[in-house]
């Protein structure tokens, strides 16, 4: 098999993803954070609820779970590995920067999907009915890819200090949650809020989850899926391009 060929690099990306899962994801604190962080945010809003129905909030919980888990660890992997010099090991192996980034994306996508399935089960246990299962499945797969690309995009600044990246990551992620129709329905948002919501991929995922559970939606389903697909493609291409440029600066 040609090591520089597409399939050769895909196998290597899968090896990197397995390594990431083993080292960074299957860790008690990471798993606990992945489940509890969105759950506590959900409970906070449930208790202070302004007559928002449970089905609305559960959809938001699913959206948050996927968004937070798929972007939880991936931004810090490059800085960690840069600090530990294991990134230099990868860079000296016959693997492209794109394959390294893609491997990290696969790991965060799988982690995001795994945790999100738990929140979907929570929703079902709480009595919600899944109206459009296939749509939910497609939305989770697509959004997990999209959010993992965002996670990798956050790791682009060539610093090997993980706390710098995590701070930047939080600064971007938390505001995004509040403009994406998770706690405030899009219908109730002011015009400026709605304008911002258009630029958040989380908006479209939350809308799809809401459609899957309640059969209501703000945007047409096809528009949601198209928007997510476009964001996924755009973030993936941009993150790979930028990482290729910044990788040597980490060494």
């Amino acid at each position, binding site marked *: 098999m040609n090591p*520089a060929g597409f399939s050769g690099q895909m*196998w290597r990306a899968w090896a990197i993803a*397995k390594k990431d899962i083993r080292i960074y994801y299957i860790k008690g604190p990471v798993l606990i954070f992945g489940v509890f962080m969105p759950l506590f945010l959900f409970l906070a809003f449930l208790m202070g609820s302004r007559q928002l129905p449970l089905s609305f909030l559960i959809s938001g919980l699913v959206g948050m779970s996927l968004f937070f888990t798929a972007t939880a660890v991936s931004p810090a992997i490059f800085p960690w590995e840069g600090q530990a010099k294991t990134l230099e*090991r990868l860079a*000296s*192996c016959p693997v492209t920067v794109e394959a390294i980034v893609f491997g990290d994306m696969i790991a965060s996508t799988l982690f995001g999907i795994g945790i999100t399935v738990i929140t979907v089960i929570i929703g079902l246990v709480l009595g919600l009915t899944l109206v459009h299962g296939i749509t939910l499945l497609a939305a989770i797969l697509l959004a997990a890819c999209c959010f993992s690309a965002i996670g990798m995009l956050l790791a682009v600044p060539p610093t090997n200090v993980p706390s710098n990246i995590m701070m930047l990551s939080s600064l971007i992620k938390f505001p995004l949650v509040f403009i994406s129709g998770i706690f405030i329905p899009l219908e109730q948002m002011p015009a400026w809020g709605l304008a911002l919501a258009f630029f958040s991929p989380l908006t479209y995922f939350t809308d799809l989850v809401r459609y899957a559970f309640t059969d209501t939606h703000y945007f047409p389903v096809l528009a949601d899926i198209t928007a997510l697909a476009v964001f996924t493609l755009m973030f993936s291409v941009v993150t790979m391009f930028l990482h290729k440029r910044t990788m040597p600066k980490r060494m």
Partner: protein
Amino acid sequence: MTAVIHASDLTKIFGKSTAVDHISFDVREGEIFGFLGPNGAGKTTTTRMLTGVIPPDAGTAMILGYNIRSEPVLAKQEFGVVPETSNAYTDLTAWQNLMLMGELYGLPRARAERRSSDLLGMVGLLERKDQKVQAYSKGMKQRLILAMALIHEPGLLFLDEPTSGLDVQSTQMILSLLRDLNTQGTTIFLTTHNMEEANRLCHRVGIIRGGKMVAIDAPEKLKTAIDRVHKIEVSFDHEVSADALAGLDGVIDANRSGDKWQITAENRDAAIRSLVTFSRQNGASIVTLNTLAPSLDEAFLRLTQEVQS
């Protein structure tokens, strides 16, 4: 011999500082090439450019016939790297690290397992293969990293300070492994501070100073080349006169030192031949005869200071 590494005008600039300044050299197939230089001379930067970790700002490097910039994956597939700092995954076991390397080099699982077992046995870590690397000593980590670099049986091995800070046992094991690998045909590019190590191991050494290559040659030739005059120490089984020795062809001066004579010669070969002829003609048997070449340390210091001054 064909060149497995062909560096041409390699240059790397960091900000306003030129770390590596248009260096060119070849490393021949089957040799151990020592890359020497003081701290900050540009050794690691050069190694990183040769291994495709960082791109050069100018110049090219052909590794085993592949251009490291335009065909990095194909080039990297053919060589192994032992970087300056330990970089195995400490949260993985030695076995998991090797299997990861096997996957990154595209080895079939069965071959990766066989190679991992062989290599762990070779570096004395087989019994601790399932232990996480974080519990390993520095020497054990370095041996593991050498094993990781060899998983795909590369024809070329880059090592950056592989024995730096290691205990005697690990150092000897690594040097012995390198000799064995070279005997089996592996070309070795070795960056080191250790002159004794380079002297004993390398067929040729290149000395870099301030980003410029100041000398490339066999260690013995480098040692002798730095002095225009040579010292020979000789002793005879009975007394000979200083004047008789000083008048010999090729000899500049003869000074007594205990029971020996220190001969200063312009041409070492001619001086030794004259001494042997003198011995035969005068019935004075030679008891000892040593050529006093400067050490590689002296050659290194002389060469690097010349550039500095």
